[in-house]
């Protein structure tokens, strides 16, 4: 029971949130053009209608009331057409809508956290009502119009199945819809629209079916009529009718004889689901007429192709698939197979290869299930930029590149806050305060913020760049000195290192704390969050030109392509993306410092050597640098060489975290991120090159 309610709430939250996301997307896009398209007005109306209905069902009064008021507002706008709104009203409408969205989101957040909903929303609803009153002030006849429309609907309903009064018509088509399809008037109108698309010239009765839901009953009982001036048109229309859904039957009626010229033709009910909405939504004949039809139609196909799945179910699916892949290789590599006779062995291997292919496919698919486009995150940035533009009074355009780049869901969740933070920083501190300042610097008066995402081998690269002030390394150094964050003489800091200072905890370059940024918990948190998902952050900036912050994040956390290496009896896995080179050295190539730390020259630069067996205190016979092998590894901006016994091979592995029992030993800070099960059932430890460096070199 409880469970049922829970899942209902889940569905509700999911639906409402995605509707609000959609609303946000539309509002931001429409604000650019300062106009709502007719489609969007309908869509907003529909969104509000859905939220109102589902909220009422879940008994979330405040949500339902707000949505109801907005629905009313958009009912009016839909009715009058957006063009009837004065310019200043439109601006106000956008602001009102953004605030309504925030209000709704706020309430939804309360539902999510289980706290009580706002009791008093009268003020806000009064505001919406006030706005509605204001815009309807100059056209208060709307009520009358609606009622006359209603009245005429009634009259139409009265004259039963008799043919409509249309002397010019050469031919009528009398159509009956399937029983119980619902919203008959709109469905009828969709059919009418589809006919209009192909350019047929005709009239339809009841004529007000698109605007008056009162005609529903008439259409259910008596069907509806299409009046054609010529026979050609009639036969053309007939072809179209055959492709339409929800038609139960139709007949062609000659007005003079009032006889059926053709036997009743069963509409092809079994036709494949055709997205009726597509033509209806694409073409917008007259804004007002199209209104109702697009609303229910545009919703249908979305529901058919997408389902929402609990993330934990996906996780366990991915886990199990990982196990299958491993078990499969355990079976096919089993030593018992060598006892098989030759023929059977070949047969077995043939089936095994087929199995391998299938499991590979299975793995690919299960991985792709978790991938979602990054557009959702970028969309939110759109909104932030829009809000800050107004608050800070800066003119900035946001350019988004590669929003369809797909990233693992868990990564999406963890990069949203960092990106938001950087965008806010750029808006607040990056872009010049005034347009005049920008013109003086010889730049376009409108600032630009570029959000881009792209794939590079096993990583997704997200960069956020602005064309604002840029960062002054000197200022950063001075600031760091003031805060006591410098670890070596100022003159020894390179440009890159100085810029990197901004990512230290407790560093905020702005003197004052603003609403959006400058609490001093800025970039260090960004860096931490990104590193937590195995990514790196880098920053380039040129004074007076702008700043670019680039984040490289592994595509997925669940699978890593790794190089297996041995040290004594242990097998370690090192992510292949971290490895630059593997090589052997001779004793004389190794250089020692005064404490005996080893270094080796690679392409003109010396890199420290970390002996894995020594650092992890493992027993191994290979202790001479000439017997083992060196791996030149790199992570973030750290580069060094790892000394291991031997390389085994390269393999894709499913990353598993270590049991939580080990948390207290701080292994994560010592280069051990997780482990994986190898084909033979043994466990291999996965190394994190960056933290290993920190633990081994920086703590010396």
């Amino acid at each position, binding site marked *: 029971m409880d469970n049922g309610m829970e899942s209902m709430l889940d569905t509700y939250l999911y639906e409402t949130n995605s509707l609000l996301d959609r609303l946000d997307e539309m509002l931001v896009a429409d604000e650019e053009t300062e106009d709502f398209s007719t489609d969007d007005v309908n869509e907003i109306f529909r969104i509000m209608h859905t939220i109102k209905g589902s909220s009422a069902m879940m008994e979330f009064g405040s949500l339902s009331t707000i949505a109801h008021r907005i629905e009313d507002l958009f009912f009016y706008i839909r009715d009058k057409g957006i063009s009837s709104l004065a310019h200043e009203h439109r601006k106000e409408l956008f602001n009102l809508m953004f605030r309504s969205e925030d209000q709704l989101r706020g309430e939804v957040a309360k539902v999510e956290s289980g706290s009580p909903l706002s009791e008093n929303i009268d003020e806000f609803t009064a505001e919406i009502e006030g706005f509605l009153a204001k815009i309807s002030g100059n056209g208060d006849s709307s009520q009358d119009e609606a009622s006359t429309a209603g009245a005429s609907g009634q009259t139409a309903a009265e004259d039963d199945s008799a043919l409509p009064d249309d002397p010019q018509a050469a031919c009528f088509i009398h159509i009956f819809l399937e029983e119980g399809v619902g919203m008959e008037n709109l469905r009828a109108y969709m059919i009418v629209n589809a006919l209009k698309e192909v350019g047929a010239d005709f009239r339809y009765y009841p004529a007000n079916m698109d605007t008056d839901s009162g005609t529903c009953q008439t259409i259910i009982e008596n069907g509806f009529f299409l009046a054609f001036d010529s026979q050609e048109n009639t036969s053309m229309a007939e072809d179209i009718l055959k492709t339409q859904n929800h038609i139960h039957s139709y007949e062609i009626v000659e007005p003079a004889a009032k006889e059926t010229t053709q036997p009743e033709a069963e509409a092809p009910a079994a036709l494949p689901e055709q997205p009726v909405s597509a033509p209806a939504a694409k073409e917008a004949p007259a804004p007002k007429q199209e209104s109702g039809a697009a609303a229910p139609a545009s919703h249908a196909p979305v529901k058919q192709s997408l389902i929402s799945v609990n993330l934990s179910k996906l996780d366990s699916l991915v*886990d199990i698939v*990982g*196990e299958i892949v*491993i*078990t499969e290789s355990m079976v096919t590599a089993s030593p018992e197979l060598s006892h098989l006779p030759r023929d059977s062995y070949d047969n077995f291997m043939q089936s095994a290869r087929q199995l391998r292919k299938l499991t590979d496919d299975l793995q690919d698919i299960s991985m792709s299930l978790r991938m979602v486009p990054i557009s959702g995150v970028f969309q939110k940035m759109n909104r932030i930029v829009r809000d800050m533009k107004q608050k800070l009074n800066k003119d900035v355009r946001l350019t988004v590149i590669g929003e369809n780049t797909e990233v693992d869901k868990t990564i999406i969740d963890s990069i949203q806050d960092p990106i938001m933070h950087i965008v806010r920083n750029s808006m607040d501190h990056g872009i010049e305060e005034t347009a005049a300042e920008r013109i003086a610097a010889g730049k376009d008066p409108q600032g630009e913020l570029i959000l881009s995402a792209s794939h590079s081998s096993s990583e997704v690269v997200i960069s956020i760049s602005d064309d604002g002030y840029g960062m002054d390394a000197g200022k950063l150094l001075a600031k760091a000195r003031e805060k006591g964050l410098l670890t070596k003489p100022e003159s020894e800091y390179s440009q890159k290192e100085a810029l990197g200072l901004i990512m230290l905890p407790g560093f905020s370059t702005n003197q004052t704390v603003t609403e959006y940024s400058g609490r001093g918990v800025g970039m260090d948190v960004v860096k931490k969050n990104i590193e937590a998902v195995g990514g790196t952050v880098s920053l380039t900036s040129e004074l007076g030109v702008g700043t670019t912050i680039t984040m490289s994040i592994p595509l997925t956390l669940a699978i890593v392509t790794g190089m297996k290496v041995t040290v004594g*009896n*242990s097998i370690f896995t090192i992510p292949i993306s971290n490895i630059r080179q593997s090589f052997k050295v001779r004793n004389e190539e190794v250089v020692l410092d005064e404490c005996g730390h080893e270094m080796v020259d690679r392409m003109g630069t010396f890199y420290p050597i970390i002996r894995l067996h020594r*650092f*992890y*205190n*493992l027993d191994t016979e290979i202790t001479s640098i000439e017997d083992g092998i060196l791996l030149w590894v790199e992570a973030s901006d750290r580069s060094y060489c790892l000394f291991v016994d031997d390389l085994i091979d390269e393999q894709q592995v499913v990353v*598993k975290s*270590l*049991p*939580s*029992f*080990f948390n*207290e*030993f701080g*292994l994560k800070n*010592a280069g*051990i991120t997780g*482990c994986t*099960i190898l084909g033979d*059932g*043994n*466990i*291999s*430890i996965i190394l994190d090159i960056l933290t290993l460096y920190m633990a081994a070199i920086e703590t010396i």
Partner: protein
Amino acid sequence: MSNQEETLVQNVQDFGESEGKQSIERCLTFESGGLVMFLSTEYVTEIINDYPITPIPLVPSFIKGVINVRGRIFPALDIRLCMGMPQLEYTNKTCIIMLNIDSTVLGIVVDSVQKVMDIDLNQVHPIPIKRRQKLLDGMVTVEDGRVLMSFDYKALASGQYN
């Protein structure tokens, strides 16, 4: 699941009202480092032997490493080393007892597993010596005159013992 919880609740109640009465618990007895210990079978999920343990660096020596039990990875602790005794070569008698203690799953390596027997928890007395290590939290004399030690699984799982 809920069944397990029920028995747990039952146990707690038994503890509360069992002054003077009997409180019989099925316990698994095992031997490690010359001591015979017992713990409630309720926490034992399985007993495995001859199993490869993958060592994990940088952890105390009594944590032997991790084991892969049907695709899941659990820590394995050697009870002998926990008690500060020297390492023994693992033999075919050496067993790993898999425990599930409040959803923390771990394995303990013991010298040998003996048997399952009923023990009256009211007969378990505290150990009359002040000690630093708390791997055992009581002792009991059973019918055949042997003295068994109550194994404090909770201290183990919560990481108190380190």
